[in-house]
């Protein structure tokens, strides 16, 4: 098994694509947070609590939850790239018990997703405190609270990477997978959150579960604007459990789906 995980890590790091990971993580964590702090949520339209309050800090950090498409797309490439370039033939020849290959991909990408998440969290922490000191504003949340939120967001990035691997294994086609993930995360889920009544399911969707980690959601604020109410987010630990369940579901799909499919 270790051989296969090592092979997957080598596969990942032997094309230039991974080099996009750290810059994207810095943008998603550091740049986004710095921008939000420097502008100040109190200057958003509509105005929101400033970072001098805990609610304001949670809101600023919750913006990071909107960037989960990046790790999801990255994870999707684990399988779709193999079908696109037809390396899947060799891969299944060298490991004909296909579930082992997929398990190795999941392990390798969970590791890589965790690394991505740590860069996001680390750069967000630096941006939060750095930008706040530039503005001369005190942070309204304890360092423990900030650390807890950022750690859970880092874990969420790993979870979305795993979800991406599963969706990629399900669809196999690279373009279709990118389109489905993008459309779901940025359109379908947001629409569901805004539709009165249907919005009640939002806390149980991946986006709602991610928002539960920070206990703040721009989508929730938008839902209040549109329909006058928003579904309550789950408690952070329950949100984490729901996200983990999606990741496990995606992992199970990734492991089980390629078993009987013909590779022609």
């Amino acid at each position, binding site marked *: 098994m270790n051989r296969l995980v090592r092979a997957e890590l*080598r596969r990942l790091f*032997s094309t*230039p694509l991974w080099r996009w990971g750290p810059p994207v993580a810095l943008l998603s964590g550091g740049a986004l947070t710095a921008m939000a702090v420097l502008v100040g949520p109190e200057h958003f339209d509509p105005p929101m609590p400033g970072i001098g309050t805990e609610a304001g800090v949670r809101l600023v950090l919750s913006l990071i939850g909107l960037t989960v498409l990046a790790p999801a797309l990255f994870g999707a490439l684990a399988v779709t790239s193999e079908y696109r370039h*037809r390396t899947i033939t*060799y891969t*299944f020849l060298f*490991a004909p018990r296909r579930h082992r290959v997929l398990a190795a991909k999941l392990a390798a990408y969970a590791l890589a997703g965790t690394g991505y998440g740590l860069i996001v969290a680390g750069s967000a922490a630096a941006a939060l405190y750095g930008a706040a000191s530039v503005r001369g504003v005190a942070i309204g949340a304890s360092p423990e609270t900030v650390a807890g939120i950022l750690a859970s967001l880092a874990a969420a990035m790993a979870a979305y990477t795993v979800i991406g691997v599963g969706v990629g294994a399900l669809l196999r086609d690279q373009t279709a997978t990118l389109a489905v993930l993008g459309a779901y995360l940025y359109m379908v889920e947001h629409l569901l959150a805004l539709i009165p009544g249907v919005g009640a399911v939002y806390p149980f969707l991946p986006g709602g579960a991610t928002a539960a980690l920070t206990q703040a959601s721009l989508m929730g604020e938008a839902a209040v604007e549109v329909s006058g109410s928003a579904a309550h987010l789950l408690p952070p630990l329950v949100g984490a459990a729901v996200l983990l369940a999606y990741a496990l579901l995606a992992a199970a799909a990734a492991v089980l789906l390629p078993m009987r499919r013909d590779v022609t």
Partner: protein
Amino acid sequence: MHPPHRLEIRGLTKRFGKVEAVTDLTFDVEPGRVTGFLGPNGSGKTTTLRMLLGLVAPDGGTARIGGRRYRDLPEPARTVGAALEASNFHPARTGRDHLRVYADMLGVPTARVEEALALTGITDAAHRRAGGYSTGMRQRLNLATALLGDPPVLVLDEPTNGLDPEGIAWLRGLLRRLAGEGRMVLVASHVLSEAERLVDDVVVMRRGRLLATGPLAALTADGIGLEAAFLRLTGAAA
């Protein structure tokens, strides 16, 4: 290298929708010989090879290597080296890194990667990305991948495609040497004139069915070439 293996195909059948790709195919391939798996494009050769290697599930019949299905072999890629098409590479990965990925999967040291590169004559191009390789170099990288595990069985699909005459002569020598070491070498090809100079035995397919099998010498015994023998067979079957 593992001990020699024999290949047994029994009643192999596969349909894709309404298309009968392979029908009730039965033949054996012996170690120590180069066997040509011949037939026109679309005759079911590639589907047969993919069933043999566990990539495509047969609707009926069995394909066994040394008495076991490919996926049940204790060390499949150290038992069978396969090269199925000339474009199984990520274009942005170097030839050497491509081999290292699969060497990792096998658990063989990176020194074996260098041996496979040297054996197939592409050491000088190994640092370049595979996307820039010519078809002939891709064929060599394919062969290097197949040879990574030093397998006693080699299965090659159209390995001469894209090779220049010098490359074909080199391949002929290499396969002859590998068979001489006791390995089983199965080469699928639709180019009969090349196959004739390469193989000891033939398995001939047409429209998914077995047309003839046996030593090349028996098929061409009355002095006619393989192409004429093939046309006579297909004419008789038509």
